[in-house]
């Protein structure tokens, strides 16, 4: 594997400087409760953007706002350089989406479901056979969508989103309910669409490991706020940063003393040598704090993700 800083230099230049999606100050409330707060999303054209966060973090609300499924209360949205408020239909002609659970007509077959959306999008009949082949559902015949497994439903939802050859694909939790094999299939499918057809893809998930081998960029949202956004290699750099985790009798004071991150009940202290670690402990003890535990910090990507999610909680 390439070093993260090398990855940044090699991977990033292929993305356009134009953003496929850009939001500014996106804030939305449901019955007085803030679902998303001041979200500034930037999805570069050509990227596979992983929009990550725990359940209820605000992912779906953000995506619904981007697609105009929720009325904008505060902030700005630009999709493919256009404003949904003024050019909604033009945007939707160029965007394929699947939000929350797959939206399928249960009494119809896969082909009939696609025919419904083909008529809505006004695309040629040949596209039905093409997308069925792409998602591997060409042989489902007269079987009704309600009889499909969750994996088949997810694939049919992706076929619907691909029908009109969109430039941007927005998929909300497309691996939900899939077994590991199904997750691999969807991942390979999306990678192929991005590499061979240049489609920009936004894929949300609450499990980092499901998308970390797929995405080029990551946005991490928690409690309605964007905690991190940038190329995946930048997130990897955080992982690589050496340090120690220290538990003390007063973490808040310890954080002020050392000026470091506090995650849960652990002070994350950047430290490149034993001498730096000793200095940090000495400062805590001299300030009258009890040091309960000092462990070498080896954060994997999942830990970085969880730390970001928990930050500020």
């Amino acid at each position, binding site marked *: 594997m390439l070093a993260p800083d090398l990855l940044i230099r090699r991977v990033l230049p292929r993305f356009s400087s134009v953003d496929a999606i850009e939001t500014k100050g996106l804030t939305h409330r449901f019955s007085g409760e803030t679902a998303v707060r001041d979200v500034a999303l930037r999805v570069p054209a050509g990227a596979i953007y992983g929009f990550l966060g725990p359940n209820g973090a605000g992912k779906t609300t953000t995506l619904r706002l981007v697609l105009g499924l929720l009325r904008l209360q505060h902030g700005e949205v630009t999709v493919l350089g256009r404003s949904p408020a003024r050019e909604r239909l033009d945007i*939707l002609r160029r965007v394929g989406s*699947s*939000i929350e659970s797959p939206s399928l007509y249960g009494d119809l077959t896969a082909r009939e479901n696609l025919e419904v*959306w083909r008529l*809505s999008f006004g695309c040629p009949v040949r596209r039905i056979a093409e997308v069925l082949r792409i998602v591997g559902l060409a042989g489902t015949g007269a079987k009704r969508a309600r009889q499909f497994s969750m994996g088949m439903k997810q694939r049919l939802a992706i076929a619907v989103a691909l029908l009109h050859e969109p430039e941007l694909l927005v998929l909300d939790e497309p691996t939900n309910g899939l077994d590991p094999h199904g997750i691999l299939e969807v991942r390979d499918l999306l990678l192929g669409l991005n590499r061979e057809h240049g489609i920009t893809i936004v894929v949300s998930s609450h499990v980092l490991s499901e998308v970390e081998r797929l995405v080029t960029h990551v946005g991490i949202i928690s409690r309605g706020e964007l905690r991190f956004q940038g190329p995946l290699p930048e997130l990897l750099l955080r992982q690589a940063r050496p340090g120690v985790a220290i538990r003390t009798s007063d973490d808040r004071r310890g954080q002020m003393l050392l000026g470091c991150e506090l995650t849960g009940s652990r002070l994350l202290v950047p430290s490149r040598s034993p001498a730096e670690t000793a200095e940090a402990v000495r400062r805590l003890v001299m300030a009258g704090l009890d040091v309960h535990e000092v462990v070498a910090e080896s954060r994997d990507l999942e830990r970085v993700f969880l730390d970001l999610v928990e930050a500020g909680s």
Partner: protein
Amino acid sequence: MTLLRAFRAERLKLRRSYTASAIVAGGLFVPAIMLAVRLHQNEKTAAMIRAGNYWMEHWKESWESISILILPLLTILVTTLIVQIEHRNNTWKQLHASPLSLPVIYLAKLAVLLVALAEIFVVISAGLFLAGWIPMRGGWNPFPAAELLLWNARFFLDMLPVVGIQYLLALTFRNFLAPMGAGVAGWILGLVVINSRYVIAVPYAYAGVDYLIRIGHRSGASLPDVGMLSAATFLLSVAAGFSMYALARDRGMAQ
């Protein structure tokens, strides 16, 4: 062109749904009973044929229960079933993420509802024709097609407000029982007030009251023209329904 495509898509969504079964079963209910009555009361049937006004009398007799009972209930059921397809399949969000404008979506669904109402009339009329023709046994009266078409057209107009109101209710409530219950409650209220002047406030009874006026069982003097009233109520309910639909905050239609 876009509206036509949207209409075709809406019609396709009805495939294998309960809508067609409801139209056929509900539409043939009264004709089946009338067939049994005509066969059982063969003396009376023969007398009607001899009198030379068999078809009109057969039609009027059959339409008593159709206009007051079957037609409003069947229209409530079919309209609610059709609109509920999007709620049941959780497809509103996908529909609103397609490049169809809100008026096109609304009008395409309304067109499908009106076609379904027309289908109810076709099934009822075909059923009544058979229920009248089978017991004729060699005797024949000319079939007054134009007259009966006008009769049907008038009741079609009377049913439009029910379509408009049920469309609005079915868009508003995600739960199937809510619009269905509200519609049935409106229909019961219509039965209660059908002989009073307050019937103009209950569109579910317009077909019934129109029938009673036509056969002379009720005076229409205290009422405005039921046809005009139906047309106005329909336009008003369609406009109200569209306003409510277009102003919804959540296009996933999560109520």
